[in-house]
C-alpha cells in the first residue's frame, strides 16, 4: 500500500498546478454550498467517470473547506503516476490482502477532524451516462471502523458542453446522516441523490 506523501514543496506545487489546469480546462465549476462541521472529518462519496473527477473535487473541496484532502486511488494508478501521492492519494488493490490495510487507513484518517477522504465506491471508471451507481462493499467497512466521527457527503458530478467552447462541470453536493446506515441504505440514499442530480442535468434546454 502506498501512503500519501508528506513533501511540503511538492504538495504546494501540485495544489497550484491542479487548480490551474482545472481552471484552464473547464469553463466553470458549479457546486452547491454546503455547511461543513469543523469538528468532524469528511467522507466524500462520488461517482467516477474520468481522471478529472478527483481533480475537480479537489478544487471544490479547497473552496469549501481547509481540510486536508485525501483520495483513495487504484494501486496501478498510484504506481504509474508517482506524484499523485503528494496530492493526498493512497492506494488500494482489490486483488491483494492489503485491501484491509487500505480500508483501515481510510478509517484512521477519518478519526482526525482535519482530514477529508474522497472515495469512489464504483471502484473503477464507468460512463458518465450510467443510471445506477455501483457500490463496492469496502466503503461499509470504512464507515463502520470510523464509527460516526465523520460527516458524510455525497457528490454527483456531470460534465457538459452546452453553449460554451469549454465544458462546465456541475457538482451536486449533499450532506447525509451516516449513523445506523446499512450497505443497502447507503446505496439507495446515494442513488436518490444521483437520480435527482441527473434529472436536473437532463432538463437543461437552451
Amino acid at each position: 500500500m502506498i501512503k500519501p506523501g508528506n513533501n511540503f514543496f511538492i504538495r504546494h506545487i501540485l495544489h497550484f498546478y491542479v487548480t490551474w489546469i482545472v481552471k484552464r480546462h473547464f469553463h466553470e465549476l458549479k457546486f452547491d454550498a454546503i455547511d461543513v462541521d469543523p469538528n468532524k472529518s469528511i467522507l466524500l462519496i462520488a461517482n467516477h467517470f474520468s481522471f478529472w473527477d478527483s481533480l475537480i473535487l479537489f478544487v471544490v473541496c479547497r473552496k469549501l473547506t481547509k481540510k486536508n484532502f485525501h483520495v483513495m486511488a487504484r494501486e496501478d494508478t498510484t504506481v504509474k503516476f508517482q506524484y499523485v501521492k503528494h496530492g493526498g492519494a493512497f492506494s488500494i488493490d482489490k486483488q491483494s490482502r492489503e485491501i484491509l490495510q487500505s480500508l483501515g487507513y481510510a478509517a484512521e484518517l477519518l478519526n482526525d477532524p482535519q482530514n477529508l477522504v474522497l472515495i469512489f465506491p464504483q471502484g473503477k471508471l464507468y460512463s458518465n451516462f450510467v443510471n445506477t451507481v455501483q457500490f463496492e462493499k469496502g466503503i461499509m467497512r470504512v464507515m463502520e471502523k470510523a464509527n460516526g466521527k465523520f460527516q458524510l457527503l455525497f457528490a454527483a458530478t456531470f460534465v457538459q458542453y452546452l453553449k460554451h467552447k469549454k465544458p462546465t462541470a456541475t457538482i451536486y453536493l449533499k450532506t447525509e446522516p451516516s449513523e445506523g446506515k446499512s450497505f443497502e441504505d447507503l446505496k439507495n440514499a446515494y442513488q436518490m441523490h444521483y437520480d435527482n442530480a441527473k434529472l436536473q442535468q437532463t432538463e437543461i434546454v437552451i
Partner: protein
Amino acid sequence: MIPQRNNRLIKKLFVPYLTYRLNKAFKMIQHDEVELLPGHSILLLPNHFSWWDGFFAGQLNHTYLKHDFFIMMQEDHLQKRMLFNLLGGFSIKRNSREMVESLQYAAKLLDNPNNLVTIFPQGALQSNHIDEITVERGIDYIVKKIKGNCQIIYYSAFIEYFESLRPSVYIRFLNCGTNHNFDFEKLKAMINEHHKKALKEQKNAEH
C-alpha cells in the same frame, strides 16, 4: 433569411484549422460505419448538445461523408459569426414567416446529389443526457419538398473522458432511408429507438 455564400478558398483554409482545433480539444472522434447510397444528397441530423456539434458534422463530412457541406443555423447566431456563412451556413428564424423560405431553401440544396445539409432536428441546445430526441416538424416539410434523391442520416454523439484528460467523442450513425417512401412518424420512432440503443451502448462502452 440569409442564404449561404459558400467560398471554396475559405473552406480549404478552414478545414486544416478546424482539424487542428478539434485535435487540440478532443482526444479522438470515433464513429461507426453507415451504408452510403451513391448519387444521393445527404440530410444529416445530429443531436444538439454542445457548441462543437456543427464542427463535428463538418469534420465528419470532410473525413467520411465527403459531400459539399451546408448547415442550417439560427439567424441571430449566424449574424454574430458571418464567417460560417462563407462555409455553407444559411439561416432560419423560428416562428417567423421567413421560416418556410429557409425550409424550402434547404430542400432546394438537397436536390443536388453532391450536397449535404446538416440540420439539428431538436431545434435547441439540449443536455447530452436526455433519452428523448424531439424532431421538429420542419424536417417533414423539407423532405417532402426534395425533388432529387436524398439519403437521411441521423447520428447520436456523446462526449466522455474516461482515462484521458482530453474528452473523446463517440458517434453512432443511423441510416434513416431516403426521401422516397418517407414517413415522419416512422422517422421519429426510428431516431428515438436508435438514440436509446446508442445511449445504452455508451454506458457499457469499452475504454
